[in-house]
Each structure stands twice: as C-alpha cells, then as structure tokens.
C-alpha cells in the first residue's frame, strides 16, 4: 500500500431541503391555526377576581362581533385604538370624552352598513361589550361606560365584565 493514498474528490454534495421545508410548512400551519388576532384589542390590565365567572367563549354560531372597551386604573378608556381620558378634573373635558366614546361606539356599530343585522326588532343591539377594566379603576368610570352603551342612539345592553378566577391554595 502506497504511503500517499489520494482520496478521490467527492461528487458535488447537495443539501436535501425537503425535510426542512416540510417542517417549516408545518410551523406555518400551526401558527396560522393558533393565532388569535382579537387579543390585540386587549391592553394589559390587572383584572378583578370572581369565582362565579363563566368561561369566556364566543358563540361559534354567531356573526355578531364583540366590542372590547379597555379601562386603565388611571381612568383612561381605550377602544379600537382611540383613547378617552375620564380622569380629568374638569367635568367638561370628561363629558367631551364620554361623547367621543359614544361617537366611536356608534361609528363602529354602523361600520359596513350591517346595522340591521346587528339589531333586534326593538332596536336593541345584539353586540355585547366586554368591559376589560383594571380592578383599581374607579367604579364611576365603569358606570359611565355603561351609560354610554345604553345611550338611545347606541342601545347596547349586553355587557360582559372581564374577570379572573382567584388562584387556589395550591397556587393554581
């Protein structure tokens, strides 16, 4: 055997991309199925606790949307990206912001001309409003949101309060 064996040059090596593409497509499908863009409407707040809450599950048979009205501890309402500050010391400014909230609720309700579909025969809205409020927000601000919803030009009467189940003794 010669001391200087020469290793023959290998053929052009090619990476087999098929398994990687398979996995990548599976990842895309997974993310597409699990993504829930509706959560983008929620802002981070510390929710109140309640033991009697029901599971927050939207009815799959309904086409009626749900409005999410966020309320921070400081008294700022955030609805569809718009802010309405209720914490002002000036009642005039507070009133302006409540009127602006009513306008926003009315506009969003009437979007797309689907108003007739979203109302009961008596004119009451089928759309529920989720009040996603911080536990420390003043109760009067929540009441003002409720009053805005029940305005004769809006007529939203279904309200949901976002709550959390209190942790049990074992921390769950």
């Amino acid at each position, binding site marked *: 055997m010669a001391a200087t064996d020469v290793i023959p040059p290998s053929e052009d090596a090619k990476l087999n991309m098929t398994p990687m593409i398979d996995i990548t497509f599976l990842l895309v499908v997974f*993310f597409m199925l699990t993504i829930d863009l509706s959560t983008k409407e929620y802002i981070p707040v510390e929710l*109140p606790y309640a033991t*009697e809450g029901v599971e*927050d599950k939207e009815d799959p048979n309904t086409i009626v949307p749900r409005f999410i009205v966020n309320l921070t501890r400081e008294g700022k309402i955030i609805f569809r990206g718009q802010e309405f500050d209720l914490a002002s010391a000036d009642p005039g400014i507070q009133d302006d912001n409540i009127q602006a909230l009513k306008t926003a609720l009315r506009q969003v309700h009437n979007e797309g001309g689907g108003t007739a579909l979203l109302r009961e025969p008596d004119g009451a809205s089928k759309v529920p409003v989720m009040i996603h409020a911080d536990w420390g927000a003043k*109760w009067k601000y929540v009441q003002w949101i409720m009053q805005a919803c029940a305005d004769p030009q809006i007529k939203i009467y279904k309200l949901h309060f976002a709550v959390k189940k209190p942790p049990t003794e074992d921390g769950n």
Partner: protein
Amino acid sequence: MHLRLEEPDQTELNMTPMIDIVFQLIIFFLLSLKFKTIDERIESMLPKNMGTDIRPSPAPVEDKITLRVFRRNVERSEHAYTFVKLDGALQFRLPMGWQGRAGESPARVREYDATLAAITTALRERVAIYGGPASGVKGEIVAPPPQGGSVPHGDVVALLDSFLAVGMTDVRFEGAAAPR
C-alpha cells in the same frame, strides 16, 4: 419522417425565494402570537327602559337586598378602604390600602377573602329570609356619589360575585351619573 427531440437538460427548481417567504411568514406569526389572557367573564344585561335615566326611579315595592358601598379616606390612598353596608344594618370593611391581590401578602389576601366570605354568608342568610333566590328577591349595589364613585371596580365586581354565589342574578346598580 422520424424526428427525435433532444432531451432537455435537467431543470432544478430554485427553492430560495420560497424559503425566504416562508421564513418571513414564520417571523410574522411568532411576533404576532399572543396567548389569550381572558379566561372568564361575568355577563350582565342593562335595563332597556332605564339605562340612561339620571334620576333614581321611584323605589318600586319589591323585595330587595341592598349593598351600599362607600370609599373612605380617598385623599390618602394608603389609608383608603371600601366600606359596605348590607340593608343599612350589617357593616363590613375591606382591608385598608388594598393594593390588589397581586401586590399583597398572603395574610392580607386572606383578610380580604374572609371579609368577602362574611358578606356572602350574610347575603345568603338574608336571601333565606325572603325564601331563597327563587322567590324573586332582587339585589342592588348602590355606590352613593361622590365617594361611592371612587370604590375600585374590583371591589364592586367582588360584591356582584357574592350576589351570584348565593344564586341572585337580578342585580341593579345605582351610582354617579356621567357629567353632562
């Protein structure tokens, strides 16, 4: 005539742009992924005929159990507390300077829970006097302005939760009207 077509060279699909797009998609979904934070809700229905009435309606003759909530020492948050009266007789005081369940010691959380449990027990006894929740007895949470409006939303929800825990689902709210 017999034609013989030349075999084309072996063509290869260029996968690079597709893989680029797919990776972009993955990055988009990864960045926009946010797990749902809400698990539960309390459902309620506003009264259709009196939702925006700023004058308190004349008290109808009906069986009702009233919780009145007040906020004391509002000017000093560390001394502020929520005070609850059941039908004007029994009184309860939630812990002073309560910072929310997440910001309190286990002992203070137990104190808060014990007060709420006492309210629930007192409500249950009151409901039993009327013959149970099926008797049609109504609940009411009154937050008299101006101090009642400063009661934390979490405390009112906890009181609403107490009503629900004893089987009372018809609960009315009364409090400060919006400025106009």
